[in-house]
Structure formats: structure tokens, C-alpha cells
């Protein structure tokens, strides 16, 4: 069926709630569907399973962790990414470490949902894309879908997973639309090869995927054939799919919605430089947010953020490079 990205999230929630009685959803303002993906869930599943919580992010995430340890399958909707910080202790000191510290005594089927709200004049706090911070916290799985199908399938996989998963949705993609196959299962940890090409690999994260896809006609007009890979899952990272492509093309641009410093892009770049140095024909190119807090003024945010144009320019520069 044809669904928007936001509708795909709602359908995945609905399906998991319907199929598994142990699934419960905690969140702020979910009862009245403020964020557009909990429509009718309260009426259908009731207040015992669709739990409108107080503004207590730390305690709510901790409650979800405890409930997961004792047999439930909780989902916490923290809405916007920056609310992760309010629950940081429970996420980093508890959720990420319980499996390891107690040596596998507990299952922790916990999903934390957040939306990245950049490029929307939301200013510095609400515009964060903090997925790299959590890549540096072993014990968490991280997914970042970039199309309705992945939004649907990855959310279902996240809920079914017996580990804590942070589900980073991308608000800039909420109204993209495509046909979604409800039976398509996407395992966490699988990148998606979107186009095949011989000249350069473009590795994309979250909303940067759409920017790269939008570039395709222009690249082809310039006789450039790019292999676009959407990582989809940041942890575990499907580095083999990326390596395979870069081994073939010898050139790579990585586009990330995060701030450039210690980003997912810089991590992938570091792995490629370490493991695949001899295959590289040119330096690795990175397009990401410049390292500044996100400014409110649209003109200023456009200046610092990754764009289609910046990716194009970087691709051209990398292709021009010759030893």
C-alpha cells in the first residue's frame, strides 16, 4: 500500500501492537497524535498499552528498561532527538550496559524512537542529529531509515529485536511517499545498495540519501555513474557492503546529517582509510553539518548543512583528484 514515511511508522506500530500483547508504547502526547504517527492507537489499544506519560524522560526510559527486563516489549517515543539527552543516564549507563554488565542474564527488547528535526527553523536545540554520540556507546543498536519502506520494516525489526534500539526517524522525510510492502523484512545491520555505478561510491545517512538520489540525473548528465549506499543501520554497521563498493570504485563521498566532527561519516571514513587504503584512488570526501550549533535563520542553516549541491561539488572534486 502507498504510505508516507510518517504513516509507515504508524502502520509498523499498529502491526506490532496487534501481533504482540507484550508491546506497550510510552510517550508524550501520543494519545492525541500530536506528532502524526500515533493516530487511533489509543482508541484501538487503550490506555493500558498506549501510555501518555508525564514529562519525565529519564524515569520513563528507565521504566521501559525495567519493564523490558521483566518480560514486556516497550517502545518509548521521546519525540525529538534532543530529549534523548534528558534521559542520557538511563540510555547510556543502563540500557546500553545491562546486557554486558550482567553477562546476558536479561533480554532487553526496548525501542526508543526519536525524530531529527533539522532544516525546519527549529534553532539549535531541536535540530540536533546526535546519532554519532550513541555510536560511541557500545550496547545500543541504531537505525536511521530514509524511505517509507525502511521506516516501516526497520521499526518492526527494532521492536522485535531483543536489544535496545534507538530509531532515528528523519522529519524532513515525513511526507515522502511510496508503495510499502508489509511483508518485507529488513534485518538491522544491512545497508541498502540503491544504485550501481563504476565511478564513485556515495555513502549516505538518513536524509542525505534523498539528496544523493535527487542528484542522479545531474550526475548522469555529466557522465558520472555513482553507487549510492544508504547505511540504514549505524550499529551494527554493514561496512562490508561499503567496502565492496569502494574496492570497485576507488572513490567515495560520505554524506551525513550529523555534525562533521566524530560523525558517522568520519567513522566510516576512518575504517576505509585503515582497512582499504590501497584501494583508494583519491581522498575520502565528507559532507556533513559544519560544527556549529544550528542557527534559527533559514539562510544561516542552509549555509552550514549538507545539501544536494554540496554533495555534487564534493563528488566532482574527488573525481578530479589524480595522483
Amino acid at each position: 500500500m502507498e504510505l508516507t514515511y510518517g504513516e509507515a511508522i504508524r502502520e509498523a506500530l499498529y502491526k506490532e501492537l496487534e501481533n504482540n500483547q507484550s508491546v506497550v508504547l510510552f510517550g508524550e502526547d501520543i494519545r492525541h497524535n500530536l506528532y502524526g504517527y500515533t493516530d487511533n492507537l489509543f482508541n484501538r489499544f487503550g490506555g493500558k498499552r498506549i501510555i501518555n506519560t508525564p514529562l519525565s524522560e529519564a524515569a520513563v526510559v528507565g521504566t521501559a528498561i525495567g519493564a523490558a527486563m521483566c518480560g514486556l516489549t516497550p517502545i518509548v517515543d521521546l519525540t525529538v532527538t534532543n530529549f534523548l539527552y534528558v534521559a542520557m543516564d538511563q540510555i547510556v549507563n543502563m540500557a546500553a550496559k545491562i546486557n554486558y554488565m550482567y553477562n546476558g542474564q536479561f533480554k532487553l527488547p526496548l525501542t526508543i524512537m526519536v525524530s531529527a528535526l533539522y532544516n525546519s527553523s527549529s534553532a539549535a536545540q531541536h535540530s540536533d542529529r546526535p546519532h554519532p554520540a550513541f555510536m560511541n556507546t557500545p550496547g545500543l543498536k541504531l537505525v536511521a531509515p530514509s524511505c517509507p519502506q525502511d521506516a516501516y520494516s526497520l521499526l518492526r525489526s527494532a521492536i522485535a529485536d531483543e536489544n535496545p534500539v534507538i530509531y532515528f526517524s528523519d522529519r524532513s522525510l515525513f511526507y515522502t511517499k511510496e508503495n510499502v510492502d508489509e511483508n518485507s523484512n529488513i534485518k538491522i545491520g544491512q545497508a541498502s545498495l540503491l544504485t550501481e555505478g563504476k565511478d564513485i561510491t556515495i555513502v549516505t545517512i538518513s536524509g542525505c540519501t534523498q539528496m544523493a538520489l535527487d542528484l542522479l540525473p545531474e550526475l548522469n548528465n555529466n557522465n558520472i555513474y555513482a553507487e549510492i549506499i544508504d547505511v540504514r543501520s549505524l550499529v551494527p554497521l554493514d561496512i562490508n557492503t561499503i567496502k565492496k563498493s569502494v574496492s570497485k570504485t576507488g572513490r567515495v563521498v560520505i554524506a551525513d546529517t550529523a555534525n562533521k566532527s566524530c560523525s558517522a561519516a568520519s567513522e566510516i571514513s576512518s575504517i576505509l582509510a585503515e582497512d582499504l587504503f590501497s584501494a583508494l584512488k583519491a581522498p575520502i570526501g565528507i559532507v556533513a553539518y559544519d560544527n556549529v550549533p544550528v542557527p534559527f535563520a533559514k539562510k544561516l542553516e542552509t549555509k552550514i548543512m549538507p545539501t544536494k549541491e554540496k554533495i555534487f561539488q564534493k563528488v566532482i572534486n574527488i573525481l578530479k583528484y589524480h595522483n
Partner: protein
Amino acid sequence: MDKNISRIKSVIKDTLKINPEKADETKKFIDMENFEKISLLRKMIKIRCFEEKVTEYKLNGKILGPVHTCVGQEAIDVGVCSALSDHDYIVGNHRSHGYMIAKGAKINLLMAEIFGKSTGTNGGKGGSMHVSDISIGSLTASGIVGSGLPIACGAAFASQYKNDGKITCVFFGDGAVNEGTFHESLNLASIWKLPVIFLLENNGVAVTTLLDQVSASQDLYHRAESYGIYSKKLDGQDVEEVYNSVKSAISYIKEGNGAVLLEAKTFRFREHQEGPAYARMTETGYRDKNEVNYWIENKDPIKCFSNKLIEENAITTMEIERIFKEENKKIEDALEYAKNSPFPLDKDAYRNIFNQ
């Protein structure tokens, strides 16, 4: 000195009596067979012997990392865990040995964990501060003060959701009441009527910071009132009072009234952690030595309960000495077990990052 002692005496005198509505429970306890009372005494002695041995091996360098002992606070661990059922959950903190032993943890595995051995409760991945064993209903033991309260709410939420009749008890100290999670968790437990006991061990000090420096009121149980949670304070040195209060709390919760907070007034006989850096704190005079000595002399939970049982003719001094000897022997055996156990394999460092 006099001022301090009179303050302490007034605290003890002022501790609330057992809830009169729950007099039945109290009577039931008084009617307990002597051997059941002796079993409470034995558990406290077991913990004391365990902690003394662990301290010895921390100080001689054989145990690595932070070690927090609960010497002086054994009546709380034993009173609480004896009142709980085997299947009930406990959520702990950094001072984690006492309630684990009281809840029935195998001391061999506990000791092995503290020695970082592969046979330990956590396979050597947790250590003293994080010992936990789901087979006795123990969930997390966290070194982040106050972080266990939300976990307990979650366990209680699951019990309520599944209607499995389990109670969750979370142990935390007076240091935790100024953490946001304390307030958030009490509020959640109250609005959702969760089957959880908040067991506040008020030993009056957070590492070296005295409670009167960080809280205008020394009676912390009042804080629960503003969240609509039934709360009371009790003498944490009196194992019978702790046991009875928890039994009453369980009945109250099982009647569907929701969470309870119990503030057990107690005293940390030793420093925050074992080891020279903390031993040095004793000399700084952050707390009154006379006060420390007063509690050790007059409010040792094992001494107090022993004297009471002797007065009741439930036990003799010789029998108590025998219990000490027997428990010490078990601790020695646990120590041997721990020493002889292998360290984890290198590959274990990469196991259980995720549940496969």
C-alpha cells in the same frame, strides 16, 4: 558530643511505631518460631562475616576496584528480603552485597564475581558494584545514585501489566533523594499505582557529605507525601521492625493501594568505600567520631538483636558464637571457591555486548 548523642537518641525514640492497622502482621511476627528469628540473626551474621572478609581482601590488594560494604546496615537488607517472596524483585545500588545475600544469592558465586572470576554471578563483567542474579529476582545494581528507581518502576509496571502478583523493592540511600529520578519515579509510581516499595536507607551521609548539608529536613519520608505515596520512617537497626514494616507495606500494596516509601534510619559504620583513599576521610573529621562510636557501641543491629533474643531465651551466647563460626566457615569456603576459579577468557570480553 552530648548534643549529638541526644539528637541520635531522639531520632531513634521518634521512629514510627508499626502501623496499628497492621497489628495482625506484627502479632504474626511475634508468634514466629524462635528458629525463624534465629534465621534473621544468622542472615545478618552471614552478611557481616562476608563484608569483613571482602574488606580484608580489598585491603590486601587481592580484590580490585570499588568495594562498598554495608556493615551496620544489615538489618535493613535482612528485614526487607526476608519479608519478600522468592519471586519478588529487588533493585539495588553500589552497596550491593547485603541484599543479595539476604535474598538468597549463592555466596560462592558472589565472592567469585567480586574477585572478577568467570564463575561469578556476572561472569566477571560486573564486580562488587554490579553483582546481580535474576535467579533470586535481583535486577540491576547500579553505581549511578538514584538510577535504580525508574528500573524498579518498570519491573513493577511489568508485574502490574501481567498481573503476576510480584512486588518490586528498590534500595537507595539518602544521597538519591536529591536526584531527579527520585521525584520522577515517585510520581510515576503514584499515578500508575505501581506495586513497588521504595526502601530509603537513610544513613545520614553521602560519601562524606552529611545530610543536613544537603536537605533542610532530616526526615526524608515526608517527600513522598507530596506525591500521594504512603510513607513512614522506621528504626533501620531493628530487624523486626524492618521485617514487620515491609510485611505491612506488601499487604497495603496487594490491596491495590500502590507504592509505599519506607525510610529506614541507619548508620554507615565504615567509610563509603574500602581502601586507603576513603580511610583517609576518617581523619578529616567530616563526621563526629563520637557519633560513629555511639552507633557502633549501641546500635549495632546484630548486637541489639542478639541481646533481645538472649533476653527472650530464644538463644544463648554460645549458640550465637557457633553461628558466627559456621558462617565464617562458609565465607572461607566461598573465598577458596573464588580464588580457585578461573579468570574469564579473553574472548569473553567480546561476548554479550548484544543479546544474540
